[in-house]
């Protein structure tokens, strides 16, 4: 490419070389993330590492297949059960109903929790807030590893998802919604009513 041809793009290149501002909060989060990691090279001896299998590959594949079969059997068992058994308490380990003192009758508070230590923003969207990503921003847990929010919900079935730095993500700890619309990864929480 000749210099003259390149000159016609000089203005474009100058614009693209303009510095992108670095957000101080994001930089601090990045350095926090680095501080949480073990020091690099602590496992390094400076010599090429000999590969040693802790588990023989064949055994690992066999174990994987066995887990898949067991998982399929468990799924079939759960799907065969009456719907009533599939409450959020029974099926999720993180997102769970959480009765609060003085809670209005007919509503239960559900604590939604998403583990994402390196995310800078996480929000909850669902049919209860019109899938509006600005409606329910989640707060970071004190240890900085998870994001959470408590939401009072009426009893029934609610479909929801997390917005992690702009991308939708289903709750890995909750059942997936079978009726995902537009292929959006969604999860289900079943609220059985306030406990007394």
């Amino acid at each position, binding site marked *: *490419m000749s210099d003259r*041809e*390149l000159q*016609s*793009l000089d203005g*474009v*290149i100058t*614009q*693209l*070389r*303009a*510095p*992108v*501002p*670095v*957000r101080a909060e*994001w*930089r601090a*989060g*990045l*350095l926090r*993330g*680095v*501080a949480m*990691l073990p*020091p*690099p*090279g602590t*496992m*390094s001896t400076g010599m090429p590492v000999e590969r040693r299998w802790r588990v023989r590959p064949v055994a690992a594949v066999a174990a994987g297949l066995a887990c898949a079969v067991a998982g399929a059997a468990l799924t079939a068992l759960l799907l065969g059960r009456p719907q009533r058994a599939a409450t959020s308490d029974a099926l999720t380990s993180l997102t769970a109903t959480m009765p609060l003192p003085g809670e209005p009758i007919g509503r239960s508070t559900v604590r939604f929790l998403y583990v994402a230590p*390196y995310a*800078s*923003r996480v929000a909850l*969207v669902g049919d209860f807030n019109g899938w509006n*990503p*600005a409606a329910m921003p989640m707060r970071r847990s004190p240890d900085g590893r998870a994001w959470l929010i408590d939401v009072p919900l009426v009893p029934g079935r609610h479909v929801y998802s997390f*917005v992690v*730095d*702009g*991308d*939708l993500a289903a709750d890995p700890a909750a059942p997936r919604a079978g009726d995902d619309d*537009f*292929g*959006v990864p969604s999860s289900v929480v079943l609220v059985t009513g306030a406990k007394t």
Partner: protein
Amino acid sequence: MTLPAFARVDAGSMTDAMLVRRVLDGDPRAFTMLVDRHLQPCLRFATRMLGSRHDAEDVTQEALLRAYRALAAYDPAGGFRTWLFAILVNRCRTSLLQRSRYVRRVVTDEDMMHNAVSGDDAGSTELRIEIERAVAMLDSDQREAFLLKHVEQLGYEEMAAVTGAGVSALKMRVKRACERLRDLLGEVNDVRS
């Protein structure tokens, strides 16, 4: 003891390789210096490559954390910037692939503002949006080569190490990217006049 010595040395005069050695010797402040030295070009490349400030922050963060974890594997014979950009370019490629798999993506107003405003006056903002739109319309391999060559100012050998592509292929990508950009921005100017 190496740590007290670090305090006496003018860290700004230390090369990247020396700072990497400091980190591996157990001085985490040296990595903060490496981050500050390379954060701006990394974030700029990712922003221009992905067209989204939030995605750019994510992949830059991911690349730097990966670099930290893999620091012992860094070979000082090669440039640290080249090594870091190789990681970053891979993360950008992965991000672009993942993005194409999403059927629906939530884009907030804040996203738009991040991309539209970067501290300059409103007059040049319109031009920059047109430039960013034209850059976004390039094929991703052409965009990658163009940005590495003309924005980050890497040499072709360095680009080959970063991208894994051959020098002649990279030259062709850059040439085609320039031609396409000229066409796209020429069309905009024609419409304006």
